[in-house]
């Protein structure tokens, strides 16, 4: 059950309006994504917390309909 990039991006943006999101379709199947998310909201958070925030933004889809999302996160620097 693929989840399109636009939908992933929309959900993350809804939670973190300032986020810069780079999505890469790893397998060309609209189902295996790599995402790099940069947001000021991640400042002072551990990696685990940053990823939990993104999973939370995806509202339980991660590990379910969105089965492969390779995630990296970073705090915005300014």
């Amino acid at each position, binding site marked *: 059950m693929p989840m399109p990039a636009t939908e992933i991006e929309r959900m993350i943006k809804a939670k973190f309006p300032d986020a810069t999101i780079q999505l890469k379709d790893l397998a060309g199947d609209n189902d295996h994504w790599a995402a790099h998310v940069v947001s000021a909201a991640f400042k002072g958070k551990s*990696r*685990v917390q940053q*990823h939990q925030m993104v*999973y939370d933004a995806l509202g*339980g889809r*991660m*590990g379910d309909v969105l089965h492969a999302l390779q995630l990296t996160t970073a705090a915005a620097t300014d």
Partner: protein
Amino acid sequence: MAQDTASDPVHQKIADTIAANDVVLFMKGTKQFPQCGFSATAAKILEHLGVQFKDVNVLDDQGVRDGIKAFSNWPTIPQLYIKGEFVGGCDIMREMYAAGELHDLICQKGIPHAHHHA
């Protein structure tokens, strides 16, 4: 993490496992026969570091498979625990390993491991 381990046998079982073992990897399959690419990567990283670890095959136990996600507030498998602390899943392990941070962490925690001089 888990709020009421006492009232939930699955949470208690998970808590006992991570208390009894310094390094625990909850994975699909075993370290010898991983049954998912992400779990295979996670196991390989620990093997590269020369760390002894307890592998828990979540495919053997549906309760643990679901329970560990709630326990860690983490939606996917694999999951790594070091000294009772949730370290992360495959992506975080990969990132930390590449940055040398996973090696630093196991040193800090006093986990025996092979020393690599690359």
